């Protein structure tokens, strides 16, 4: 009898606890886009000298909110380029919410670094088809996601002040366009993009929203170990960001400094602005530059291989906040990120035909739901 009462009481408590919990919910979102690009010379972003139509992408984002505390969130990304279609798991993680100020995340999580890492391929939150390459390009500084464990939260301080924080530990996989280094080292250029693992990594990001509506400032940093056993080095990156988003005007700027102990480093910076002329027409402009150094590599043979300067202007037509048509013109000086096919780099330089000025026109559409 006592056992029966106990079970009934426990079921009652469980039922009343369940009644106060929100019902499980499944949310499905997605985004994608397509871009055409044509350059005067070199390959850069979605463009090549012949004009490239094949660049398209699509992602599905699924989040299951099992109760008020536990969410399971994943995103798969498909991208089609000249080399075929690639599929990636952008992230797949579990989040346990203790409170808004403290959430635990475990799994493959978007790397919280700077303004754009967590919305890397989402075209409807930015003014250009592509992100600034000096920071978000294949420069080996920011990963799509980290594998590990992290804490995040927000803490309001009243009067419009809010601090958002992330701390995390684990490992990341970085992609870098290494053909210029291979050429300058005198190595065989066997690959364009190389993938490097950074392990034993710790990182953080702090973003402070100010009482001026839409204005925030922040900083990010991480440090980990990179390289093969016996030849490891510490890879550290720090960044600073400022963002102002109003109904008509968007302003964003970021700076990033990378240091690979004994190996070199780099500095990337960009400033970006966009202005809505009407509800639908938006003008955009961006300047960015990247300077890379590598120990033991002299760039005198081809100085442009370690530099990237870019100015871009764009015109967008927002059909809806979830669907935008974009056109942009990019003027690039340097071959750090814009160049011929990697297997043609040596021959192009030897023939004296490496063009260090790339002009790119991009047209495309981006959408989300």
């Amino acid at each position, binding site marked *: 009898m006592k056992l029966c009462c106990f079970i009934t009481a426990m079921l009652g408590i469980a039922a009343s606890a369940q009644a*106060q*919990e*929100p019902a499980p*919910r499944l*949310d499905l*979102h997605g*985004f994608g886009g397509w871009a055409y690009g044509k350059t005067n010379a070199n390959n850069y972003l979605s463009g090549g000298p012949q004009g490239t139509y094949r660049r398209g992408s699509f992602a599905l*984002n699924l*989040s299951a*909110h099992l109760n*008020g505390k536990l*969410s399971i*969130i994943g*995103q798969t990304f498909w991208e089609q380029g000249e080399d075929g279609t690639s599929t990636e798991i952008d*992230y797949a*993680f579990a*989040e346990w*919410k203790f*409170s*808004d100020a403290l*959430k635990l995340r475990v799994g493959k*999580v*978007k790397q919280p670094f700077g303004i754009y890492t*967590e*919305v890397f391929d*989402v075209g*409807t*939150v930015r003014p250009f088809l592509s992100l600034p390459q000096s920071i978000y390009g294949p420069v080996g500084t920011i990963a799509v996601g980290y594998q590990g464990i992290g804490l995040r939260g*927000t803490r*309001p301080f*009243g*009067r*419009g002040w*809010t601090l*958002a924080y992330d701390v995390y530990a684990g490992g990341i996989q970085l992609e870098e366009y290494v053909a210029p280094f291979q050429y300058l080292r005198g190595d065989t250029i066997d690959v364009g993009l190389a993938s490097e693992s950074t392990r034993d990594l710790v990182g953080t990001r702090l973003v402070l929203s100010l009482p001026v*509506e839409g204005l925030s400032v922040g900083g990010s940093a991480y440090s980990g170990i990179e390289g093969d056993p016996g030849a490891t080095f510490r890879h550290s990156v720090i960044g600073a960001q400022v963002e102002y*988003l*109003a*109904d008509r005007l968007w302003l964003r700027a970021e700076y990033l400094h990378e240091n690979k102990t004994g190996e070199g480093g780099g500095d990337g910076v960009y400033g970006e602005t966009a202005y809505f002329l009407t*509800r639908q027409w938006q003008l955009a402009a961006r300047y960015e530059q990247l300077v890379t150094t590598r120990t033991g590599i002299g760039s005198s043979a081809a100085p442009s291989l370690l530099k990237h300067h870019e100015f871009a202007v764009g015109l967008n037509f*927002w059909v809806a*906040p*979830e669907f935008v048509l974009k056109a942009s013109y990019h003027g690039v000086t340097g071959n750090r990120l814009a160049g011929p096919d990697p297997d043609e780099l040596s021959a192009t330089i030897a023939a004296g035909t490496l063009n260090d000025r790339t002009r790119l026109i991009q047209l495309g559409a981006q959408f*989300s739901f």
Partner: protein
Amino acid sequence: MKTPGVGFGTLGIALALALAPPLPVQAQEAIAVVVHPDNPLTTISREELRRLYLGTSTILPKGESVLLLESATVRERFYAAALGMSLARFKRHWIGVVFSGGSGTPPKEVGGLDDLRHFVATHRGAIAFLGAAEAGGTVKVLAVDGLRPDDPRYPLK
């Protein structure tokens, strides 16, 4: 040389408008913020509303997990008054929140007023906004910054 002038047609229209009885000035109706009747909240600040509707906070001030709802008829006015944002900017903000893997969920648009009131009345964590005259008795109307919707200083108009 032809000089710009005012034609008889224009003058006639101006005269007719001047002599016509004044139209009643349509005051902007207050927008009420409503919750489940059992919700212990009685007032909410604009700062708290802002954090909830931007997804910065996912818990109501008295501890319930929030379920955000919106009424299509007054949402442009609500987001302008409560958040200082256009609807387009508000939508873009939530696109960023959703794809950065946040646990917040954007406001759910509920079609008719009856459905909206019913939804709020049957979900403890629900919060919604609608024209103050349409709130009815099945949901609890919150004061905003300590002011009721019938107060001339009420901020959501």
